[in-house]
């Protein structure tokens, strides 16, 4: 393969009326979503299959995407949840020993509409200044139907995100040497959360998002994992109510990303929408206990308002070094700790994997006291 000389035009129409004309790759058609950007320079495959991106049109700030192709090992879930995908340039001749497919073909296969060849830096700066905004990618010329399209775009919002991405069945994953049993609440979990647990000897029982405290208790777990997931956390009222009960079980709870936000909401704190979120593999987070800063992988548009947390309930354990937002909470009243970032990585740095060890430590203590 080589030079891509001609391809069908495609457009990005933003809610503010801005139009970027580029070229089409992946599937064709029109799709509306919330346009966000991620600054990760690798891990496009993980990004595309991370359920937390549900309802979003993802822009990659790194200009060369698809260099190492797509393989069957690096998926974070079984499908892609992004609404659309924007890159500056995609690679039609990937080179990597694990590569099985090109990104274009992969997107076509999963029916994801892609756009390339636009000034992605200009778009990123626009999103940074104005905040995330809705938009549409379309392979049909928007000229002449802008009004209709804009109305649709502006009306769009990400709804029922968790309900959509969660599994409906319970699955059990067993490692070779079982040391712990963990129930993983699936809000749209990334596969590497499960793997990180299994690597530490956890038998992982993945259960649907709306599983109740009693149902979980019946599985007799040593720990409960609240996964990442998409959407506005405050919208998942049913799950929040469940968590309020789950934490009372006394079983160690570890929450990541959406799991962190939902726990905070269950414990009486508030969440807010960030202007343009944290998406990338270079977010510095300070562990307030040790004073050390860790580079973390992040993907979230909402954050817990640290000040809204009742100090008697818990304390902020991690903050973002850049904007000082809440990145983790250790609860005093219940046996739970949660983080906003992704210690499971994939993609991104593996530097905070120690949190899984903290989780198994809590499970050890719990088992001893049982």
């Amino acid at each position: 393969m080589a030079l891509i000389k001609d391809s069908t035009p495609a457009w990005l129409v933003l809610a503010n009326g801005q139009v970027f004309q580029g070229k089409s790759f992946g599937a064709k058609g029109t799709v509306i979503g919330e346009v966000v950007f991620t600054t990760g320079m690798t891990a496009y495959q993980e990004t595309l299959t991370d359920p937390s991106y549900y309802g979003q049109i993802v822009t990659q700030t790194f200009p060369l995407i698809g260099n190492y192709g797509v393989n069957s090992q690096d998926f974070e879930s079984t499908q892609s949840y992004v609404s659309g995908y924007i890159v500056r340039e995609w690679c039609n001749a990937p080179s990597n020993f694990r590569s099985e497919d090109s990104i274009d073909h992969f997107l076509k296969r999963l029916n994801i509409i892609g756009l390339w060849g636009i000034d992605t830096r200009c778009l990123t700066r626009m999103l940074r200044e104005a905040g995330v905004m809705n938009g549409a990618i379309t392979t049909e010329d928007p000229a002449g139907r802008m009004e209709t399209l804009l109305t649709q775009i502006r009306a769009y919002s990400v709804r029922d995100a968790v309900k959509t991405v969660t599994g409906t069945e319970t699955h059990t994953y067993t490692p070779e040497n079982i040391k712990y049993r963990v129930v993983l609440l699936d809000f749209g979990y990334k596969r590497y959360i499960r793997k990180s647990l299994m690597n530490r000897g956890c038998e992982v029982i993945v259960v649907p998002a709306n599983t109740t405290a009693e149902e979980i208790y019946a599985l007799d777990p040593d720990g409960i994992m609240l996964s990442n997931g998409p959407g506005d956390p405050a919208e998942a009222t049913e799950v929040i109510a469940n968590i309020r009960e789950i934490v009372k079980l006394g079983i160690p709870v570890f929450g990541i990303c959406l799991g962190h936000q939902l726990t905070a909401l269950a414990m009486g704190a508030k969440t807010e929408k960030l202007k343009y979120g944290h998406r990338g593999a270079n977010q510095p987070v300070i562990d307030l206990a040790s004073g050390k800063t860790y580079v973390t992988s992040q993907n979230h548009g909402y954050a817990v308002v640290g000040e809204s947390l009742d100090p008697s309930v818990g304390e902020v354990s991690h903050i973002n070094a850049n904007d000082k937002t809440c990145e983790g909470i250790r609860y005093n009243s219940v046996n739970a700790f949660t983080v906003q970032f992704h210690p499971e990585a994939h993609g991104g740095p593996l530097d905070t994997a120690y949190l899984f060890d903290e989780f198994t430590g809590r499970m050890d203590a719990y088992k001893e006291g049982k």
Partner: protein
Amino acid sequence: MGLRKDIKKVLVIGSGPIVIGQAAEFDYAGAQACRALKQEGLEVVLINSNPATIMTDKAMADHIYIEPLTLDTVKRVIEIEKPDSVLSTLGGQTGLTLSMQLAAEGFLESHNVKLLGANPETIHKAEDRQAFKDTMEKIGEPCIPSKVVETVEDAVDFAGEISYPVIVRPAFTLGGTGGGIANNEEELRDIATNGLRLSPITQILVEKCISGWKEIEFEVIRDSKGNVITVCSMENFDPVGVHTGDSIVIAPAVTLSDREYQMLRTASLNIISELKVEGGCNCQFALHPESMEYAVIEVNPRVSRSSALASKATGYPIAKVATRIAIGYTLDEIINQVTGKTYACFEPALDYVVIKFPKWAFDKFVYAKRTLGTQMKATGEVMAIGTSFEQAMMKAVRSIELGVDSLNMKKFEEMTVDELLGHLRKGVEDERAFEVFALLKKGVSIEQIHEITLIDEWFLDKLLNLVELEQWLADGTLTEEKYLTAKQYGYLDSTIERMSGQKCPTHRNAVYKMVDTCAGEFKAETPYFYSTYDSENEARQFIDRTEKGKKKVIVFGSGPIRIGQGIEFDYCSVHCVWTLKELGYEAVICNNNPETVSTDFDTGDRLYFDPLTPEDVDNIIATEQPYGVVVQFGGQTAIKLTRHLSDCGVNILGTSADDIDAAEDRERFDELLEQCGIPRPQGYTVMTTSEAVVVAEKLGYPVLLRPSYVLGGQNMIIAHSRQDVEEYMEIITSHMIENPVLIDKYMMGTEVEVDAICDGKDFLIPGIMEHIERAGVHSGDSISIYPAQNLSKKVRETIIEYTKRLSLALHVVGLVNIQYVVYRGEVYVIEVNPRSSRTVPYISKVTGIPMVDIATKIMFGATLQELGYASGLYPEGDYVAVKVPVFSFEKLQDVDTMLGPEMKSTGECLGIGHSFEDALLKGLVAAGYDLKREGGVLISVRDSEKKEMIPIAEKFSRMGFDLYATSGTASYLNRNMIATNTVRKISEGSPNTIDLLESGKIHYMISTSAKGRMPARDSVKMRRKSIERSICSLTAVDTANALANVLLSGRSMDDVELVDITKI
């Protein structure tokens, strides 16, 4: 934690002269370090023997010693200045090794000096081969099977165990000096012998050769709290086997999946944490292209060439941050200057790609072995930033100044596929990327090229994109779509027109994007831009946003460091920028060299990191709309732009384009000299070999030959006979027949050099410099003395008068450099360069006259009189300064070390003393001459110089040296009552001169020959052998005489005073 309370006064050790493997990047790092220390209110003491650096500038430190970087000298500086700390990790390997020696001896402790930046244990673990292996084993990081050995036999035994090919890496040598790949026992014995000798601790590493694996680097930073981050990943275009300094490098790594990337990133963090580095560190890995297997190649626990590149590639100032860490700060306390909001404890995200392309000196060293391996050979590099790999690559190839504007190279186009493939199979050479491109253009498959070169298919496919684009351009109408695609792929309009054979259908100016460390995530105010073809022009927005109503002035830099155009031009460019800022202008820098201070984003008001071709520069001008531009500080690279800029109506500040042309165009220059009544050596222009011979014989030998298209001594020789003329003409005409050759009468007189400043009316000569070596040795390779010691009053006055006439006749506004030869009492002009020169930094420093500042002010209308300077020669000071050239011959196999009209030195040192002898002594010591006062001297000189050798040989003999000479020289000396042992020539069988050089008996060799260059010649073999054996090799009788005088003076470094130049 903040600044440590126990630090008040810090000694910074620089890296010394520019040599291959240790170049301007350490001036950049050192200058950043000094500034960071001064910002903290600390007192800074600096020692560096290199006078061309910015770090040795008064603005950078409180006390500055331009003194030899030897252990004894550094100790003396510590005793004089009594610093409480020494910063060890910013001065390259030189600075680090000295610091470690000071620590190991207990000197630092006994003088209450703290070692900042590194501790001996860290350095030991990183640099001692065995300790490093043990450390890696301990933390489970895989190394390549290897063994540290101290004898050749052990090397051979181990190679037998792990099987050939094996790589030999000597311990503690610069840029891998003395290393190499051995394919069999014979080769191993050769390389191991040499490597053991070059290693200061007689230790080499023999390791399994993993050529073909991907070479990946990470720049990592750690602080005392244990915070660790990676600044940048880099991937080599050339797989393992080519030194990273000689490899095309891409940042960030582009062919790694997140798994591979994170695996190596984590390994880097584990390594730096285990080594407990506090500051910057470079980790190099080899990654198997077909599996997750990797191995740690090397770790450098200090700032390096790679860290300079990573800093420029990301906008993250590694040296500055490393310095702050060394004095107590932690990463989470240091603000990210780029965003002003975020902290240094984060990892930069790039939204572009960067390509580093090395610059080699093979255009000067035609007989040098061009093969690339573990020994670095490049003298410099350029960096290019693009939104695509292709764009960055195209920018890189035109920045490197090879005379090409694309990857098409005529000599490869003309070769057949079989010839090209055959050549490619022989090994890696400097022009491999061009060769590969030619093959792709001829239809050879990526698979086949990959099989031979092992270059990743990803890179090859990108090159194929360029091939296809070029074919597309050549095919049919040049549409706007094609044009725009080509622009986005980095092609110039002129290239597009040539390739398509059509006029461009439209013209697009480039837009500029900001380098902001965060891929646009945060609002940044870094004035650091690169060009691309896109919708938004951030530079224009930035200019509008920050508009203060100041006039904008663009200063063009000097591009890659190469022999003949080095760091001194960066010194000048940076000084010009400082002065412009002081004068209230907005100073804009355009340059493409990542190693320099000029390309630090906070040197100027704005930085454009882009090529320096007419179109690239036009684009910057279109965005900046400057009041004027400055070309006279950026060497030939900037001067070359003058005509074009002037034609475009751009205001050239200083000497006009027409006057620059008058100095460069030979005919116009001759007319000018005639008008001024100034003589120059007689000369003619010829086209063919037969014409050349006729003219040469008319002028009488020796004659000087050079191509007309270059100044500065490139491809210049002195011919002593008809055969020399014929040999030369054959070489030169095989390259470029269309260019005439200049033949001048060669006058073997004293060479004198003058840098002057002129305001169009008055002129100022800060100092007259005299060269030790007579004319014929390139001025850059000569030992130069300020003030001139041996000129008669009349000659001196003539020089002043000629300088005045020339400056005024050329309407010089700013700097001018004039070279004279004094022959039989008469003064002749050799060359006039209406620009800054190599000697400006050193003359500025020793005379205290800020030449660039004055020149800049004059460009803006000031007069010398207003600035307080009288016309004429400035009064001489109390000190004598001697500039001694430094060469990198041990890195360049097969290069003849004989000095001649073509420049060969890569750097220089300065010696400053109250007398000429003291200054020269210092200069020689600084340049690495081991001034032994006993042992053997081997002499072999050409017939014409035998007579002159008598008094020199007599001096060595008188001092008790044993003299050896080849038969002709020996019998001549013996006949003249100087007892000399005769030694056989190489052709006369063993034992001969080579065996004698091998024996260790010889400390000095004086070798001149009528003929040189060809590696097969005896004299060249002897000179190469002496370089391999680190024997002091003198190739000009004048140098030998000067050295003999220094030895004869009986003075040593202990007898000479150290000078703080801030007190001059």
